C-alpha cells in the first residue's frame, strides 16, 4: 500500500517537472497521452468494471470535443462554460443512447450503440454549416494561460488527475463494488435486491461524462476537433488500449493508452503500415496476454517480492 503511493507520488512529481526539462514536442505528446489515458479509463468503467458492451465510446469523446469547440467558436460565452458544456453534451447523449439500448444486453447492446453512434457521426460529418463537416473545426482559440504547450499541459494534467482520482474513488466505493457484482453475475445481483438497470445507466453516464472531459481536453491541447474522433474504428482502438493494458484493472487502460499513443506517434511517422502493427499487437495480446500488461507487471513485481521473502 505504502509502496503504491510512493510510486504514484514519484510519477506525479515527474509529470509536474516534465515541461521544464523536455522539448515541446514531448510535452505535447504527454498531454495527448494523459487525455487518451482518461478516455481509456472511462471506457473501462463501463466495459471492464460493469461488463457493458460499450462499443462506441468514441462518440462521447467526440461529443465532448464538439460541444466545447462549438461553444467557443459559435458563441460569446466565457471559456469555462465551454469547458463544462462539452462533458454535459456527452452525458446527455449518453443518457439518451443508454435509455434506448438498455433493453438489450451484450452483443445486441453493442451493435445498437454502434448504429446510434454512427447516426450521430453521420450528422456531424454532414452538417457543414454547423460542425464543419469532414473538415472539422480547427484553430479554436483557448484562453491565453492555457494556449501554449506548457499551459495546456498543466491544465490537462490537473483535470486528468482529478478525474482519475474521482474514478478511482468510485471504483472502490460501494457503488463500484456493486457494478462489479453486476458484471460478474447479473442474475445473482438482482436476487440481492439490486436494480441493475439504474446502476448500469449511472455507469454509462459516468463513462460518457469522463469521455466527454477527455474530448474537451483534446480541444484545449490540439485546438481542433474532427469527425474521425467519433468514427467507429477509433472506438475499437480505445478498446484495444483497454484490453492491452488489462481490462479488470484500474491502471491497465491508462498503460494501454500510453503504449498505443506512443507507438502510434513513433511508428506512424516512420511506417505506413501502422494498422498492420496494431493488428499484430492485438492478435498477440488476445492469444498470449489476455489479462493485459498491467497484470503481467503486477505478477512480475509480486513474483519478485515472493522470491525476496523466501
Amino acid at each position, binding site marked *: 500500500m505504502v509502496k503504491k503511493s510512493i510510486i504514484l507520488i514519484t510519477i506525479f512529481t515527474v509529470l509536474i517537472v516534465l515541461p521544464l526539462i523536455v*522539448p*515541446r*514536442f514531448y510535452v*505535447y505528446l504527454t498531454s495527448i497521452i494523459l487525455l487518451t489515458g482518461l478516455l481509456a479509463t472511462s471506457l473501462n468503467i463501463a466495459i471492464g468494471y460493469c461488463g457493458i458492451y460499450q462499443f462506441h465510446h468514441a462518440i462521447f469523446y467526440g461529443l465532448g470535443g464538439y460541444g466545447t469547440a462549438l461553444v467557443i467558436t459559435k458563441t460569446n460565452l466565457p471559456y469555462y462554460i465551454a469547458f463544462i458544456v462539452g462533458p454535459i453534451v456527452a452525458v446527455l447523449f449518453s443518457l439518451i443512447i443508454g435509455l434506448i439500448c438498455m433493453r438489450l444486453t451484450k452483443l445486441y447492446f453493442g451493435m445498437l450503440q454502434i448504429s446510434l453512434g454512427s447516426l450521430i457521426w453521420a450528422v456531424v460529418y454532414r452538417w*457543414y454549416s454547423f460542425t464543419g*463537416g*469532414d*473538415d*472539422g473545426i*480547427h*484553430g479554436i482559440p483557448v484562453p491565453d494561460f492555457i494556449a501554449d504547450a506548457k499551459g495546456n499541459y498543466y491544465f490537462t494534467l490537473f483535470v486528468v488527475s482529478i478525474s482519475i482520482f474521482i474514478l478511482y474513488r468510485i471504483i472502490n466505493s460501494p457503488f463500484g463494488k456493486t457494478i462489479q457484482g453486476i458484471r460478474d453475475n447479473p442474475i445473482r445481483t438482482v436476487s440481492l435486491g439490486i436494480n441493475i438497470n439504474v446502476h448500469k445507466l449511472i455507469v454509462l453516464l459516468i463513462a460518457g461524462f469522463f469521455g466527454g472531459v477527455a474530448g474537451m481536453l483534446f480541444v484545449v491541447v*490540439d*485546438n*481542433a476537433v*474532427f469527425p*474521425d*474522433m467519433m468514427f467507429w474504428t477509433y472506438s475499437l482502438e480505445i478498446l484495444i488500449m483497454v484490453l492491452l493494458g488489462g481490462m479488470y484493472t484500474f491502471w491497465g487502460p491508462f498503460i494501454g493508452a500510453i503504449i498505443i499513443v506512443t507507438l502510434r*506517434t513513433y511508428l*506512424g*511517422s516512420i511506417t*505506413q503500415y501502422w494498422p498492420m502493427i496494431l493488428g499484430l499487437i492485438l492478435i498477440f495480446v488476445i492469444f498470449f496476454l489476455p489479462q493485459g500488461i498491467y497484470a503481467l507487471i503486477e505478477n512480475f513485481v509480486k513474483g519478485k517480492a515472493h522470491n525476496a521473502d523466501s
Partner: protein
Amino acid sequence: MKSIKNLFFVLLFLIFVSFAEGADVIKIGIVDTYSGPATTFTKDVLDGFSFALSQINQKGVLGKKIEFVTRDDKFKPDIALTMAKELVLKENVDILMGTISSASALAISDFCKKEKIPFLVTFAKSDKITGEKGHRYVFNMNENTEMAGRAAAKVLSMKNFKKYWIAGDDYEYGHAIANSVFNHLKELNPKIEKLGETWWKVGETDFTPYITQILSAKPDFVIVATGGAGMVNFQKAAQSTGFNKKIPFYQHTAIELSTLMPQGKNAPEGVYGTANYLFYYPETKENKEFVENFKKQYGRYPKSGALYGYITAHMIAKAFEKAGKIDKEKFIDALEGLTVDSPVGKVEMRACDHQIMLPTFFGITKKSPDYEFLIASDIVSIPAKDYMPTCEEVLKQRK
C-alpha cells in the same frame, strides 16, 4: 578512466558533427496521403518534387542540400495535424508542404500560422486556403476550385448550351467547383438557366441512378463536379449508359491522365475537361525534356501532381537563394512575386494572396492512335491572368 575520457571526446565530436550536419541541410517536411486512392495523385507530387531536387542538389542552395521527410496523413485532418506537429516540434523542419486533402491543408495552415512556419500546399484545391483562411505563412502551389471554375466558365460561355444541370460530390470540393463554374457562367452569359441539381455522397461508386435521373430531365449540358476516384467511376457509368453520347458534360480534370489512363480505350469520348498539365501539350522543348527525363527515371508519364511538385521544389530553392540565408520570414518575403521556369512556361507566385499563377488547358476527350488511352483534343490554353480572381476579390474574403 582514460577510456571514459576518450569516449567523452568521441561523444562530443559526434554531437558537434551532428549539429554541423544539421546546419548543412534545408529540411522540408511533407505531410500527404500515401495510403488509399489519393496516392494516385500524391505519388506524382512526391516524384516531381524529388526529381527537381536531384537537379537542385547537384549544386546546392546557399551551399546546403535540400532534404525532405514524408508523413502519411491517411487523408485524415486529425492525423495530418499530428504529423505536422511532429515534423515541426520534433524534426525541426524549416518548411512544411503537402496535403491533397483540403481539410488537412486547412488544419495544418492554422497550426503553421500559430507557429510561424511556411506551409506550401501542393494539391488541396479549396479556395479557402489562400482566400478566406489565407495568411502570411500559407502558399498554394496549385490551382483552386475558384480558378478551375472560372477557367471552365470562360470556355463554356463561348458554346451554345442553354439548359444546364449541376451534379457532383456532396462535399465542399464538389459544391465549390460546381458553383464556381455555374456562377461565373451566368455572369458571362446571363441567358443560361439551371434545370436542377443532383448530389451524391462522397465515395459513391455507382452513378447509374443519378445518370438516369439527369437523362430524364433532358438538359443541354451537365456540369459534373467529382473529385478523386469519383472521376473514373462517373466516366465508367457514363460510358456504360451511353450518357456521353446523349448529353455532353464537363468535369474538371476529365482530360487528365489520372482519369483517362485507368480506363484504357474504354473511356467515354467527347467529355469536356480542364487540367493544369498534359504531358503532350504544350509541345515545347521544356515540356518534352521534362517528360522524357521524368519517364526515364520513374517509368511513367508525369501528371499534374508532378508539375506541382516540380514547381514547388524550384520555388523553394530559388526563394532561399534570393533570401540569402535560411530564415523563414526572409524566405516568405523572397517567395512573394517569385517567378520560375517550368514545363508549362514561366509561373509566378502572386504576392498579394500567395496563389501560384498557372495556365489551364481545356479540351475534349478523344481516342488517339498514339496511346493506349484517350487524350484531350481541341486544346485551348487559358493563361493565368485571364481567369484568376483579382487580388481585391481574394483579399476581401479574408477581412
